[in-house]
């Protein structure tokens, strides 16, 4: 059973951060979907509701997504359905149901660095930065690789550009966590291949991405890149699949992702 001693709704980030730092078990609240599951003992729960962090707005070459924005807002946002071939809405599409996505927030999804996250995989294939109250602005990939440090994720920045992207996943049943998820993107000639739910957190297949960016995109090269991605990343075993199966799936889905992006590119031109 989870316990909670106090709940506060601060009016500014400084105050929120102060309370967060006061005690080890003080915690920022997201959508609270997973709260009841564990036996978490929260001291002061910090609700960011009053900080106006629920927004998706475009400015200065970026799309800014506030931490308290719900996954449902990502899913239904008109521009996001256009940008990057709608990769962000697609990535959250299968997460449980509308009610769940109305509650779960972008901030909590990204900050928690869940291995099963669908959103992180898609964001990582774009030019994404996160802005932390204390830690400042940094690339998503750096944030993911950084050791855990208590902070408040304020917003996510996604650079607006002509990146084409695709999101693929395999689930044992439609509303389950993904066995594996893959996002592939291309900006000019530069490719990014991301694989998540390995089941550890999403990572960029750096060498496969680089190889693909240098080549001529022949079928052999695409298959080679997919194979390379499966080889350079590590995969684990859990109830949803073995590492061997994930590795095999990685190869198939990366290949399909590349093809989908190429296809999107062609239909655009």
């Amino acid at each position, binding site marked *: 059973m989870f316990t909670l001693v106090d709940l506060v709704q601060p009016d500014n980030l400084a105050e929120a951060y102060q309370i967060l730092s006061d005690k080890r078990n003080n915690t920022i609240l997201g959508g609270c979907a997973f709260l009841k*599951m564990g036996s978490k003992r929260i001291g002061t729960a910090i609700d960011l509701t009053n900080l106006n962090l629920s927004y998706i707005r475009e400015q200065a070459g970026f799309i800014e997504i506030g931490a308290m924005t719900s996954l449902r807002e990502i899913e239904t946002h008109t521009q996001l359905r256009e940008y990057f071939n709608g990769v962000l809405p697609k990535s959250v599409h299968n997460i449980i149901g509308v009610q769940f996505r109305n509650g779960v927030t972008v901030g909590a999804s990204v900050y928690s660095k869940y291995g099963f996250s669908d959103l992180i995989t898609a964001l990582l294939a774009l030019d994404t930065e996160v802005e932390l109250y204390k830690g400042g602005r940094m690339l998503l990939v750096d944030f993911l690789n950084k050791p855990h440090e208590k902070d408040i994720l304020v917003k996510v920045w996604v650079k607006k550009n002509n990146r084409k992207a695709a999101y693929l996943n*395999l689930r*044992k*049943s*439609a509303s389950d*966590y993904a066995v594996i998820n893959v996002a592939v993107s291309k900006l000019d000639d530069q490719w990014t291949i991301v694989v998540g739910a390995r089941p550890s957190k999403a990572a960029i297949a750096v060498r496969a991405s680089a190889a693909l960016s240098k080549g001529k995109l022949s079928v052999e090269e695409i298959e080679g890149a997919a194979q390379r991605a499966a080889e350079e990343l590590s995969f684990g075993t859990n*109830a949803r699949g073995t590492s061997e*199966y994930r590795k095999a799936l990685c190869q198939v889905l990366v290949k399909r992702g590349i093809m989908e992006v190429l296809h999107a590119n062609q239909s655009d031109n």
Partner: protein
Amino acid sequence: MKSVGQSIRKIDGMAIATGKPVYTQDLATPNALVVKILRSPHAFAKINSIDISRAEKMEGVECIITFKDVPAGRFTLAGQSYPEPSPYDRLILDEMVRYVGDEVAIVAAVDEKTAFQALKRIKVDYEVLEPVLDFEQAVGHSTVVHPEEDLSCNFDIGLQKEKNVASSFTEEVGDVEEEFKRCDVVVEGVYYPQAQSHAMMETYRAYTYLDHTGRLVVVSSTQIPFHIRRQLARALQIPASKIRVMKPRIGGGFGGKQTGSVEVFTAIVTLKTGKPAIITYDRKETFSCTTSRHAMRLKVKLGADREGLIRAIDMEVLSDTGAYGEHAATVLSCVGHYTLPLYNKTRAVRITGNAVYTNKMPAGAFRGYGATQGTFALESTVNSLAEQLGLDPTEVRLKNISKEGETFLTGQGVLLGSTSLDRCIRKGKELIGWQDKFPSREIGQNKVRAVGMAVTMQGSGIANIGTASIEIRLNDDGNVTLLTGATDMGTGCDTILSQMAAEILEIPMENIIVSAGDTDTSPFDPGSYASSTTYVAGTATIKAATELKKKILEQGAKFLGVSPEDAEMNGLAVRSVSGEQEIGLAKLAELTILGAGKLQLVGYATHGSEVSPPPYVAGFAEVEVDQETGKVELIDYVAVVDCGTVINPNLARMQAEGGIAQGIGMALYEEVRYDELGKMATNSFMQYKIPCRKDIGKVRIAFEESFEPTGPFGAKSIGEVVANTPSPAIVHAVYNAVGVKINHLPITSEKVFLGMQKS
């Protein structure tokens, strides 16, 4: 017919759909004590000591019960007619704990928070023992799950506790070994249908209090009020006359609520404290501390001649009953009981089996009740046979299935009263497009589509055991009340029985009040299970209604001054056949029941059937398999059902669609899994995935009515038979798509992928 055969809305439909407070928890008083259970963290252990002193002292804690405080007599929680064919192997709380989640202590407190805190303050010292987790290793394991001396059975069910065998079973007709020698083709297979969770939406719950005479009143979400009363009397060692069990609306059961999983815990609290108490299992407890479908291993051997006539069937079953033996013997025997009669060109059949104890959550009753597992194994083998013979699997079925008026080897000469299975198969072939689609076709982008099929049967009630009593009385205002112990759990039997009564009495359904599921007022009924309510309670309803109608006509004739033969029902009145005179039911009731009449008109009947006529389903699946990932997508599922006469087409269709969906869940998604220490790993809807609406594809139901001569209006059952075909039919379709035969359920993309890698 005016009522029977009509898609009438359920009489409770609007109330339950719009959230009216009619379920167990809604009915509890707010001051009821909250009951929580301390559970074993070990798969097998002996309790050395329990220290409850710190918990007991807490403000708001009303009562803590441990094994030292409970009666000594063992009992079973299986909801079965007395004498139950399940071993008496339980105590309310035992010194031994036999699975992770087994009950250690019962805590009652003023609120949930206090109860949870009290649980944490109970200190238990365990002697941890080596558990038996693998059911294939149970027989002869050095650990004996039930070593106790006082374990007993009402009669011999083949229990050998020192070998961990809860029950064993053998049935053989003819000489199987000899017959196999004569067969042109013999195929064999080993199948592993998994444990499945019922996952009804309303978790287990019961609310208890003492009434004005000090009797224990139990309001429970149960399928079996009368069995609960008997269980509680035995477990608590109080007279059954001191107990009343009531069933309000139920949020689904599927056989789960045919086992008394919770009532005893709240009942003992109310007896000890004198106070109202409620127990509400959370989802985790519902998954991990109640019952599941029996996991099994089935070895099947089939022999046939060159023409495809099946001549010999041999099945060897090993069933995992878990820590306690609820339904162990009967589920085991039903494996053969509900499969072997499908095919009657056989000359010899044999089924042998053991149900074994292990240190896991007990298995119990679950829609399909052994037939589901048996159908998966037998039908998968028949599909293999068809392939070996180079015959269309639908043709093999048509050649071999039992027909109306025929007998079958294990049937002791009973003639099959009704079947339209041949029509079901033909209709299903047409609906799925079998001619064009069998076995498979490539559709590009590494995808293959294929079809598969299976047939199944079940029973309708339990022959010579299941009985139902129905009372229908004319009330003083001219309406009638139908009293039944049958338990509508969403299935609609309150409505179905009303339809039948209305049909016989020739009155509108609105004039029938249903009073159901209360052991103080209902006539005896074992409860709704074994596909019995429409067939058994339905027939009792017809008999009772016929009797009441006769009495009404006699009484009406008296008032009209005509002979009873010259009186007939006319809406809510009795009139003379000539049509000249008429008396309204209200007036008739007033003159008969009140004042000088002194006669309450009652129709009453008890019915039990000597046969259990089988309903049938022919199931057809179309799947799309991704050859690169192994991902299986169910495109279309067609089930053609013979349930005899369809009493209420909408409710029958809903039973069928829901049963197929549950079967699809078993085939593709669901599996109760344990970790290496015996702890259940699938104790939430995030880890145990029942199908959501994207997982089902398209399910299409058609009915091919037959007329069952022993059934009410020609009806048979439908509730369970619909759960059985998806596993074998989908396995067959996947095999036809990519040549991978999945014998361990569920079919997962990874298993299909690995199978493709090997071939």
